[in-house]
């Protein structure tokens, strides 16, 4: 089952007539030189064509709502429908970002309370919700660290320490902030190599970017020592919240000594992944960075029924690194996170970490039991863990990709593969707390069955997937012969 492009459904003159004003009034006062002469190349379709096309397209996707989706480091947990429904109430959707705060007290109250809850659960001093995704949260964090040092005249600090297991966004962000990246190796347990760290810090150290638990699926055991080392050298600690789901309400980055943290609300707080976004990268800060937060932040005047809320801007946050979006980041995403946080409550947040960890350790134990090799067999799993298929590759010539593609045929989305780069034929598996034991057991059964298939005949895996709308796609050809748009649509009416 595939579906034609919407452009292929198009017919000249066809329209969804209810969806626009009936006519285009004259715009003759606009000089001809500024006006468009050529076709726009949009499809011409009826309303039903469009509904049918996108309904069919949607059915080609795997998603949390249809499949187990244990994509490591992405926290594909259940997205409660209430979050979307309540954030989509007309009163919220129709409010202009520049409408007066007096006509946004409902929304502002939600955002303020979300700031407060996130501050508490991370153990920080304050939270700014404005960053629009994890990567922008990272940027915010490093930019604040830089601004902090500069505000103290400590201008030589231009190095950011990044463990080699880190997400690619970490070094990329450091560079965006004008810093140099100093990579820190990982020891055999998966922890940061403390000796190397001691050797790396200096008066040029701006800070360190750490994910904890790390992308290796283990909790950094020496975190207090790391904090001491970096702080001792005058650097600050940045917490990459990609894996916050593992410790939510159980351990707090602020207590570990972090000065700044970003959170991926689309992971930990269950806002939609949406096929790739929007994300939401709220940042929490400790005392030192409080005055550097990006704006706008929501402030509150008065208490109880008399409380009113307003946007805090440059006037209120003296050293702010400023505005990072035209208005208020992904405001509607924040409302969804707020609803989720209220549905969880404090006790629910703690349970998230507990059951995400339970599921992960259980799945790890079951796969180990069936002979799969773990990257860090002696460690507890965090909310995720790594299987290495190196042995399968050596013995049977099947790769992590082959296993992944065959899992699709079994009705499971594949885990994250080939990340972190340190582990060969890597399967980074994150089940999340919202999956049931039966689902985990079924996944184990599929893994075992696929291994058996590989033993019998590796081509079964090489041919996979066979049950999906398309078979294995040629990504090399895609990069070589770039085809990034449908040509006939624009050609036809140019």
């Amino acid at each position, binding site marked *: 089952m595939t579906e034609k492009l919407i452009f292929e459904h198009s017919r000249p003159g066809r329209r969804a007539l209810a969806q626009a004003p009936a006519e285009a009034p004259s715009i003759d006062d606009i000089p001809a030189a500024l006006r468009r002469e050529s076709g726009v190349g949009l499809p011409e379709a009826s309303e039903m064509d469009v509904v049918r096309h996108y309904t069919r397209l949607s059915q080609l996707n795997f*998603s949390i709502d249809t499949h187990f989706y244990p994509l490591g480091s992405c926290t594909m947990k259940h997205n409660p429908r*209430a979050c979307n429904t309540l954030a989509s109430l007309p*009163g919220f959707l*129709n409010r202009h970002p520049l409408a007066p705060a007096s006509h946004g007290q409902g929304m502002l109250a939600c955002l303020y309370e979300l700031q407060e809850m996130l501050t508490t*659960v991370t153990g920080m001093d304050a939270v700014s919700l404005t960053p629009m995704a994890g990567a922008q949260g990272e940027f915010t964090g490093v930019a604040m660290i830089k601004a902090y040092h500069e505000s103290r005249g400590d201008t030589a600090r231009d190095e950011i320490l990044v463990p080699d297991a880190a997400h690619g966004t970490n070094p990329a962000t450091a560079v965006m902030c004008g810093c140099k990246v100093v990579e820190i190796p990982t020891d055999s347990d998966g922890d940061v190599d403390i000796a190397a760290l001691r050797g790396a810090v200096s008066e040029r150290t701006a800070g360190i970017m750490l994910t904890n638990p790390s992308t290796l699926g283990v909790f950094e055991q020496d975190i207090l020592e790391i904090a001491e080392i970096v702080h001792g050298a005058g650097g600050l600690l940045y917490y990459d919240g990609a894996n916050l789901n593992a410790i939510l309400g159980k351990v707090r980055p602020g207590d570990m000594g972090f000065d700044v943290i970003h959170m991926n609300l689309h992971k930990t707080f269950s806002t939609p992944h*949406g096929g*790739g976004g929007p994300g939401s990268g709220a940042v929490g800060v400790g005392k030192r960075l409080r005055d550097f937060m990006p704006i706008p932040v929501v402030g509150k005047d008065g208490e109880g029924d008399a409380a009113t809320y307003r946007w805090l801007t440059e006037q209120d946050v003296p050293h702010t690194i400023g505005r990072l979006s035209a*208005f208020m980041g992904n*405001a509607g995403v924040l409302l969804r996170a707020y609803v989720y946080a209220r549905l969880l409550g404090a006790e629910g947040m703690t349970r998230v970490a507990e059951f995400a960890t339970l599921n992960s350790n259980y799945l790890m134990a079951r796969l180990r039991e069936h002979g799969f090799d773990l990257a860090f067999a002696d460690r507890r799993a965090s909310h995720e863990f790594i299987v290495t298929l190196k042995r399968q590759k050596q013995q049977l010539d099947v790769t992590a990709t082959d296993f992944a593609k065959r899992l699709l045929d079994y009705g499971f989305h594949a885990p994250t593969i080939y990340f972190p780069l340190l582990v060969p034929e890597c399967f980074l598996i994150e089940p999340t707390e919202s999956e049931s034991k039966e689902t985990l057991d079924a996944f184990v059964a599929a893994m075992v069955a696929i291994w058996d298939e590989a033993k019998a005949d590796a081509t079964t895996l090489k041919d996979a997937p066979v049950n999906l709308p398309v078979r294995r796609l040629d990504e090399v050809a895609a990069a070589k012969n770039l085809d990034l748009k449908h040509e006939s649509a624009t050609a036809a009416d140019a």
Partner: protein
Amino acid sequence: MIRRGGVAQPENDQRGTMPFIPHTEDDIRSMLDAIGVKDIDDLFDEIDPRLRDVSLDSIPTRASEQAVSRLMGERAARDSGGLCFIGAGAYEHHIPAAVWELTTRGEFYSAYTPYQPEASQGTLQVVYEYQTMMTGLTGMDVANASLYDGASALAEAVLMAVRANRKSKASRILMPASVHPFYRQVAHNICANQGITFESIDFDTAKGTIDRDALERWSGEDVTALVIPQPNFFGALEDVDTLTDWAHDNGALAIGVVNPLSLAVLKEPGRWGNGEGADIVVGEGQPLGAPLASGGPYFGILCCRKKHVRQMPGRVVGRTQDLDGRSGYVLTLQPREQHIRRSKATSNICTNQGLLVTAATIHMSLLGAQGLENVAATSIANTRRLVEKLTAIDGVERVFDSVCFHETLLRLPADAQAVLDALAERGVFGGLALASFYDTLENTVLVCATETKTDADLDTYADVLADVLRTHAAVSVA
């Protein structure tokens, strides 16, 4: 206690009895046994005990969906109502009901980045269609899969221009004051750490467009890129052809900042100037199907010439073939991205605004070129009529004499913010006061009337404004 289906509710732990956690007590027990620990807390035993004493007292206890629904319903009701004539970068347009009904289907809503393309053809094809539509609208060669919003897209375009314009060594960006002030701030905040300098170009005080004399001062200098807004922040139409040619004549790239809706009727950036067109085009996607929603989520558009494609930030989807020769779609050009190139990536950006792109693609499919043209032209006509009605009031006048798109600047015979506050109390959001953004624009209000406004709405604004100004004058006199 009433006996129910299944086992009785355990009185003890109830750890599993939390929303969105499916574990029964039996499950927990057998899972812990399989792991070989006694208690869930044992799974955290590698963590320093000093870190494990956490209090969340100030977080409220969990509420039922019913309770939260009521709370949110009441809060949404507080934020409801009002007749909105504010634009300034976010525009009220009708969004067909089908758009978000389809976009929030679970298969779109709860999918992620299509790392396994065979299991994500829905999302991938939508993005491919989106890229095609965006290149059609802008007349550019290539579009990415979207960035966060218009302002941050401008910042990314600036970084991209610095990478792409290898002849320029100055990392100098000419940034007209007629670009949205928040966009200028964001571009600065994101780019400044990389040693990029922004030079402001004043606007012509009569026309509200880029002051040609101010621009000419940079002629012959090393300029990396010129930013060209169309329409500009004041709603005025810039002379994009001349500006584009100026940029190219001076070795600079031309970065267009557009309202995508306007491209249904305005010359597409791909044809600006003597035919070369703009080099990079960015814009705020909100007018294409994103609700106002207090500022987001929206999405940033970024398009460019094919020769710059490898300098482009963000995701891109390409068409390819499967083992049987069938067409299919994949993420491509990934070596530009941070998860491969790490510190050498074109940007740290990772997510796109996938859901918004889905909405926009459906929105554009439903409206088509003719629908967008009708929306744009009706918005223009409504703003023209609104301006007529408002300037018929004593002391209200246009600030600039240039042609505008669907937004323009008016001067009031009183403090603009005070008047806007008074209007808001009467349920009219009259626009944005620009005094705090531009010293020279005291008592001015940027107003916009989209296709959503009826004649009666325009009359309401005029009547209420006249009334407020009368009262205000009376008060001022008193």
